[in-house]
């Protein structure tokens, strides 16, 4: 009897082992069903697979490269362009052949294999060093640009402002998606509410930037609660699709409520921010006049840059601080296990609503900044694609990682924006080649590729919010994503 007892417990794996085994089992992409391997040599297999790929590409692109429909007088005209189609098929054949022959080297080409390479995680000190370096660069960027690249400083500064706006939006959404695990596909709604609140307050009541900004943030937070309330019971994909619907509803209403929002024409003449009443313009009472500087349009850009940097840093500071507070810890606990939260006396309704509200508030701040920077807003700026971009930044960066958001913003927004400059490619593809046309095309492709390469995002480790003795980062495979159960 005693013997059988010990052997039974000996056969049972240790708890953690068993758990991780289960987890690995559940995550395994490759099912037990395996196709019989072929006896082909490497060359034959490479040729075969290249042939299949080329055939597939031929079918896929037949009606997009070979045929092209153009609008002509009296209807549509069909033009035929076999050259680009054949080139595409050729590239597919060659590419797949080389890939199979050299890279996969005889193994079955499953992209899943890449994940194992990606599993090695970043160490904490690297993150810290990188964070501080990025902060120092961000603080001095306008001066760096003005001295190092005087010809392009305005363009690059403008791009930096854009990137920082997305960093801020990403950090705001990171609270909702990364910390609380609530998948929100309609984050742009809060961005829009912030921008419109700001614009309406500023144009109708003649209030200054520094008064409108917090009010717009509060409005957005209020909307966060209002939209958050009905979706409290929803989880995962359903939550995503309802938040998407809310985002679209808000956009359609903005588009059609002419009297209030100006409809598709939007709102014009939104005042620019001032520095203690000093405007960034030419003439009396302006910033340059007051400080006795020579007027330059770049002064306004530098000012805007520091505003968004300050707002973004505020977002980061508050988020990092909240993570160590009970509310932030409850967000993360909610992401891990909602039922366990309830069993510990945590009011999950409040926890969810605070996450929605806090995230929405920062979205509202960013929206206000957007309105004042543009001086003009219309519903066109708040489409679903914006939500998708912000979510992509958060997920690609690594859920819950503040540094990841920065890296992803720089890569995705900055990298794509730089395509505009690649006019040199016209030499290769002909004068009609317009690289900006391919911006979103490449953006979409990059989203797919980065995700396949690193499904957990670029920075995927979690740092504990409280430490007893030793700070250990937590691997992404242990951290839940708020999928409920």
């Amino acid at each position, binding site marked *: 009897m005693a013997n059988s007892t010990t052997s039974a417990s000996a056969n049972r794996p240790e708890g953690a082992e068993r758990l991780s085994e289960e987890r690995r089992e559940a*995550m395994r*992409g490759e*099912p037990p*069903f395996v196709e019989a391997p072929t006896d082909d040599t490497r060359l034959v297999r490479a040729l075969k697979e290249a042939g299949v790929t080329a055939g597939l590409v031929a*079918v*896929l692109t*037949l*009606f*997009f*490269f070979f*045929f*092209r*429909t*153009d609008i002509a007088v009296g*209807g*549509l*005209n*069909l033009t035929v362009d076999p050259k680009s189609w054949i080139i595409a098929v050729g590239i597919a054949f060659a590419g797949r052949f080389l890939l199979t022959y050299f890279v996969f080297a005889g193994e079955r080409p*499953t*992209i899943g294999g890449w*994940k194992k390479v990606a599993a090695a995680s970043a160490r904490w000190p690297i993150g810290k060093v990188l964070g501080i370096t990025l902060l120092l660069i961000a603080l001095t960027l306008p001066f760096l640009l003005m001295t190092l690249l005087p010809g392009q400083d305005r363009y690059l500064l403008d791009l930096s402002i854009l990137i920082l706006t997305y960093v801020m939006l990403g950090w705001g959404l990171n609270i909702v*998606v990364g910390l609380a695990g609530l*998948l929100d596909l309609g984050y742009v709604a809060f961005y829009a509410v912030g921008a419109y609140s700001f614009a309406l307050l500023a144009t109708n009541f003649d209030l200054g930037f520094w008064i409108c900004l917090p009010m717009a943030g509060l409005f957005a937070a209020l909307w966060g609660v209002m939209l958050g309330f009905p979706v409290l*019971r*929803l989880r*995962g*994909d*359903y939550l*995503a*699709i*309802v938040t*998407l*619907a*809310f985002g*679209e*509803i808000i956009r*359609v209403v903005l*588009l*059609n409520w002419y009297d209030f929002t100006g409809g598709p024409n939007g709102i014009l003449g939104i005042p620019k921010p001032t520095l203690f009443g000093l405007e960034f313009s030419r003439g009396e009472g302006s910033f340059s006049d007051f400080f006795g500087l020579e007027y330059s349009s770049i002064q306004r850009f530098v000012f805007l840059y520091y505003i968004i940097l300050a707002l973004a840093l505020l977002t980061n500071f508050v988020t990092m601080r909240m993570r160590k507070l009970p509310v932030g810890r409850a967000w993360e606990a909610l992401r891990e296990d909602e*039922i366990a939260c309830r069993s510990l006396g945590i009011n999950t309704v409040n926890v969810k609503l605070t996450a929605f509200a806090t995230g929405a508030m920062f979205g509202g701040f960013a929206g206000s900044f957007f309105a004042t920077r543009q001086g003009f807003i219309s519903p066109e700026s708040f489409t679903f694609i914006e939500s*998708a971009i912000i*979510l*992509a930044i958060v*997920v*690609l960066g690594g*859920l819950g990682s503040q540094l990841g958001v920065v890296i992803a913003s720089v890569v995705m927004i900055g990298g794509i924006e730089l395509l505009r400059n690649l006019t040199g490619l016209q030499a290769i593809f002909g004068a009609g080649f317009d690289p900006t046309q*391919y911006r*979103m*095309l490449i*953006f*979409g492709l990059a*989203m*797919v590729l980065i*995700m*396949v390469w690193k*499904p*957990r995002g670029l920075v995927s480790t979690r740092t504990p919010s409280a430490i007893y003795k030793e700070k250990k980062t937590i691997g*992404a495979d242990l951290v839940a*994503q708020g999928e409920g*159960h």
Partner: protein
Amino acid sequence: MEYFLQQLINGVTLGSIYGLIAIGYTMVYGIIGMINFAHGEIFMIGSFIALAVFLALAAIGITFLPLVLLLMVVVAMICTAAWGWTIERVAYRPLRGSFRLAPLITAIGMSIFLQNFVQVTQGARVKPLPPQIQGGITLMDSPSGIVVQISWIQIIIILMTVVLMAGFSLLISKTSLGRQQRACEQDRKMASLLGVNVDRTISLTFVMGAGLAAVAGMMFLLYYGVIDFYIGFIAGVKAFTAAVLGGIGSLPGAMLGGLAIGLIETFWSGYFSVEYKDVAAFSILAIVLIFMPSGLLGRPEVEKV
């Protein structure tokens, strides 16, 4: 009354199109539990392929309408199915079993990619196609001047949907493929242990969903006569709404939900305002998910503690 009848006919036609797209969503969600965000784009690609086939046939002189329609359906289904297969292979299969948000992001990425791919290769402007099938049956000719008419194209759309739905239901309930699919839906790992080729089954699900979406795309083209690279997004969200409304995972539910969304949208536009028709559809989505998360025909989910 006449107005009501006419709206009813229009609503059913629109609902048929939504229903066909919704089947793709519902099957994919049923089998791998993800929202295939790019499915709306598949529908859009189907309509573009159908248009190109039509123009190509016209260019080589084939104008006999039934033959043209048949060729359009067949070629559009095949080529769109190839797209469906490729998307699954490239963007979803590598992430199978990975963390849940990853395929959603690749799906959104794919959706963005496909929209812009079509925009770049086919141009951003809308493509008008003059109506090819004209006339219809006048059902009622009231003295008030309102004519209730069901056009031939509407008849074709509704008939085709009924035929495809019937065939599809048979496929799922009677064939070995359907059984494998249902098995994968229940328990993928177990199905695999029992010798079901799970990858192939999932691929086929995408292929079939894409085929139906291609038919929907072609009918959209013939019915409205205007397409552009952006039609997939709104149609996709509405079809997903339909799938959810009917109960995700249920084929009859998808059709029923499609009809419901089509009718709601048509009546809302007919009696209230055209501008807010999308708001109506999205509000329905939100209300259904919040109050009836398992939809009309879906199985209720019980929270396990």
